[in-house]
């Protein structure tokens, strides 16, 4: 009777894959924490311009978004090719901004209202005409704090 059995020849020892779920979970958690859910589905093209002097927007819940741009491919037939305004999930007119701002304000606590910022996410190919109209409308409803959304980068890319 031999104490030492002869090793069975050849064959790789199985690799322990017990840590594999850990890795997958790591991935999962990483993306769960890092990704930002898009609040609105964009119906317009929205390529933001770049600027070097950007400031970050803090306090996401105090930001109202107004999107401006040409209707994207799927909506071209229905809405034409001129730049349009998107509020929440619909394409709207300049005159609807007042109602939109008031609805947003009604959602917030009263003490938060002075800190509300309107973020203008405007496609860089849009004309200033429509942006000017929106700005004028915002002045009328006294929503004076605005932010021109831009990506950090060099202006030569605009």
């Amino acid at each position: 009777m031999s104490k030492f059995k002869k090793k069975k020849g050849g064959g790789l020892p199985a690799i322990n894959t017990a840590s594999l779920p850990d890795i997958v979970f790591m991935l999962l958690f990483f993306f769960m924490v890092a990704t930002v859910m898009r609040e609105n589905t964009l119906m317009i093209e929205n390529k933001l311009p770049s600027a070097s002097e950007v400031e970050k927007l803090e306090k996401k819940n105090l930001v109202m978004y107004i999107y401006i741009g040409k209707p994207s491919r799927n909506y071209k037939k229905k809405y034409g090719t001129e730049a349009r305004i998107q509020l929440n999930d619909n394409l709207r007119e300049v005159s609807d901004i007042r109602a939109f701002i008031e609805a947003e304000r009604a959602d917030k606590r009263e003490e938060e209202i002075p800190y509300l910022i309107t973020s203008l996410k405007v496609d860089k190919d849009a004309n200033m005409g429509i942006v000017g109209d929106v700005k004028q409308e915002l002045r009328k409803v006294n929503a004076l704090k605005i932010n021109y959304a831009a990506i950090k980068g060099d202006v030569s890319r605009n």
Partner: protein
Amino acid sequence: MAKRAAPEVNAGSMADIAFLLLIFFLVTTTMEKDSGINRKLPPIEESDEEVIIKQKNIFTVLLNNRDQLLVEDELMELKDLKTAAIEFLDNGGDGSCTYCNGKRNPKSSDNPDKAIISLKNERKTSYGMYISVQNELVAAYNVLRNKRAQAQFGTSFIEMQKNYKDVNWIGNKVKLKEKIDQIKIEYPQKLSEVQ
């Protein structure tokens, strides 16, 4: 017949695949945080009394519908705008501005407090160009403020603002706020837009 166990699939390379994925996403994802240029619109109620501003204290920037730039009645390239704006703001023509480094040209602005940049655009101006111009003008103010903060407090204005917003920053925030406000008073951002 003896039952044969199904051969085990070698899953050793699975971790490699997972890592490959991880690296791919790490590289491709951009942690998008909303950023942009902050501006304040003027309130709608217009005061009837006309404020008289001397022509030399106004720096006019005109953007036409072909995205061309007219600064003080001269055609200008976008890249020269920042320098021109800095020169105008920092001029200190009447000598009351002790910290200005400008040429003290009597034909240009009196002091940074009086200097106003007026921006006018057409309806057909593209938004990209408009933002570029806004950016250059804000950059001009930031350069001057940075320089002033560096001379006064040994740190840049941008840094001071960043620290003020940072919750983890250790230091006296009240004092910092005072310093920031002082710089803001010395170089006030007076950017008016003509409708």
